[in-house]
C-alpha cells in the first residue's frame, strides 16, 4: 500500500517536473528495456542502443524486465512517467507484451521492438525481429555437416541417421547447462554432439564435456557471444549463430530518431534480421555481437 502510494507520487512528481520545470537544454529521453544483462546478448542490445541514442543527442534510460511481464508493464509506466520520446524494447512475451506496448502508444510514446516480436501489428512503430528460424537452420546444417549426418546427439530433427538421445531444458543458464550435461553424459557416455539453444548453455555444456575428458564432442551454440568466439578460436565449441544484437538495437534507435524528428515510419513494421554462421573461418571478426566486414 505504502509502496504503491510512493510510486504514484514519484510518477506524479516526474510528470510535474516535465510539465513545468524542465530546463530547456535537457536532452530528450529514450527508454531502452531488455531482458536481464546477465546474458551478454541482451547487454549488447542495451549497449548498442545506448551508444546510438547518445550519438544522436538523447539521454538514455536503460532498464531490465527480467522476462517478467508485470515488471515490464511497470517499466513502461516509468518510461511514460519520465516523458520518454521513444521506447526501445526487447519484450517479455509475444502475447503478454501487447498491452504494455499499447499503453505506451496510448500515452503518445512510440515503441521500437528489437529481437523478439509481438503477436500484433499496428501497435509498435517497428519490430526488428531476429530471424530465429533462418539462424537455427544455419546452426543445424553446420552441425549436421560436422557430424557427417550420423551419430548420437542432444536435440534436433530431419536426419534419420542422427539419433537424439536427450533433450533437456537448462533455462538459458550456464551453470544449469553444466550440471545437465554432466547428467546426460552419465546416461549417454557415447554422445557425439550437442546443440545448445544459446551460447551461455553451450559454454556450460563444453565445460562439462571438457571436465569429463570428452574432447571430440561437437558443440554448436546460438547468439554469437565473445565467450563462444574465444572457445571456437581455441578449438572448443565448433560453431555458433550470430544474431546481430548490436546492429539491430542501433537500427531501432535510428528509426526512433527518424520518427521523433520527422514522423517518418519504416516502410514495413516487421523487419526480419538474418543471422550469420560463425565458425573457425570468421570467428576472428566477431566482437560484441557484431561481425567486422
Amino acid at each position: 500500500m505504502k509502496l504503491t502510494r510512493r510510486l504514484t507520487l514519484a510518477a506524479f512528481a516526474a510528470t510535474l517536473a516535465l510539465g513545468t520545470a524542465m530546463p530547456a537544454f535537457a536532452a530528450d529521453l529514450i527508454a531502452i528495456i531488455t531482458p536481464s544483462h546477465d546474458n551478454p546478448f541482451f547487454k549488447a542490445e542495451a549497449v548498442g542502443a545506448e551508444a546510438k541514442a547518445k550519438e544522436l543527442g538523447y539521454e538514455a534510460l536503460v532498464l531490465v524486465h527480467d522476462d517478467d511481464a508485470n515488471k515490464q508493464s511497470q517499466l513502461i509506466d516509468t518510461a511514460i512517467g519520465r516523458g520518454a520520446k521513444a521506447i526501445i524494447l526487447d519484450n517479455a512475451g509475444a502475447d503478454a507484451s501487447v498491452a504494455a506496448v499499447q499503453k505506451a502508444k496510448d500515452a503518445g510514446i512510440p515503441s521500437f521492438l528489437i529481437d523478439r516480436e509481438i503477436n500484433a501489428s499496428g501497435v509498435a512503430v517497428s519490430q526488428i525481429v531476429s530471424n530465429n528460424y533462418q539462424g537455427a537452420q544455419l546452426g543445424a546444417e553446420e552441425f549436421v555437416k560436422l557430424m557427417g549426418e550420423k551419430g548420437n546427439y542432444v536435440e534436433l530433427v530431419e536426419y534419420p541417421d542422427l539419433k537424439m538421445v536427450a533433450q533437456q531444458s537448462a533455462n538459458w543458464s550456464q551453470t544449469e547447462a553444466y550440471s545437465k550435461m554432466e547428467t546426460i553424459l552419465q546416461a549417454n557416455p557415447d554422445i557425439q554432439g550437442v546443440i545448445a539453444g544459446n551460447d551461455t548453455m553451450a559454454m556450460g555444456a563444453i565445460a562439462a564435456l571438457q571436465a569429463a575428458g570428452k574432447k571430440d564432442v561437437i558443440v554448436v551454440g546460438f547468439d554469437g557471444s565473445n565467450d563462444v568466439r574465444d572457445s571456437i578460436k581455441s578449438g572448443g565449441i565448433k560453431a555458433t549463430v550470430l544474431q546481430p544484437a548490436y546492429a539491430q538495437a542501433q537500427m531501432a534507435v535510428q528509426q526512433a530518431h527518424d520518427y521523433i524528428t520527422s514522423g517518418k515510419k519504416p516502410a514495413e513494421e516487421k523487419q526480419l534480421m538474418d543471422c550469420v554462421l560463425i565458425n573457425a573461418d570468421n570467428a576472428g571478426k566477431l566482437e560484441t555481437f557484431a561481425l567486422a566486414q
Partner: protein
Amino acid sequence: MHIRAVAMILLATAFALPGCKFVKTADQARNAAANAFDPDKAVADIWDSKVVPYLETRGAPIKDVLTLAATDVDAAGQKYGYKAKQGNAPWTFIARVDGVVVAEETKSRAAYVDVDVDGDAKADVRVSLGPAIRGTALRDSLDFIDFNSFKNQIEWAQFGKSFNTRVNDTVLSKLPRENLTGRKGPALGAYPLPASGQLPQLVPATITIGG
C-alpha cells in the same frame, strides 16, 4: 444441498436460453481448425495460380543473372530478384538453369546436382534435390508475399518450409537418383545471394532430368 445447487444451475441455464446459441463441440473444433494457420494449404492455394507463373515470367537464364550480379549485385537483384523492403535479408534471384550435370551428391539427405551452363565443364550452380532443402528461397523470391501479413515469424517460417515440402512431394521425390552426371537438367527456381566464392544453391520449382 447438492440437489438444490444443481437445480439452481439448471434454472439459470433455462433463463439464459433465449439469448444463447448452441454450438456443438464438434463444430467448435472444426471452426478452430479452420482458423488455425495451415501452411501447406496456403502454399497449395497459390502454387499453380501465382507462384509458378510468377517464376516463369521473371526467371532469366542463370548465366545472365550471374554475369550482372558479378559486377552489380543490386542491379541484378532489381532486374532478376526480390528482397524484403526492410530488414537485412539478401537478394533472392529467380533463374532458369539449362545445362549439363557435372557432379552429383545423392547419398546425403541434402542431395544436389552441380550443373554447367556455359559449356566449360565446370559447375556454375548447385541445384537442390532434397529431401532436406536449405533455406526458404522460393518463398523469399516472391514479391507478392510479405512477412508483415503473417501473425509471427513462426507462421512465416512454416509457410517457407511448406514450399520446400511441396517441391519435395510433387517434383523432387520423383526424380531419378543414380547416374545423373552427363545428363541434362533444365530447372526453374530461386537462390539467395551466395557467399563469395560459393556456388549459387538453387531450389527448383520445376525440374526435369533428361537424357
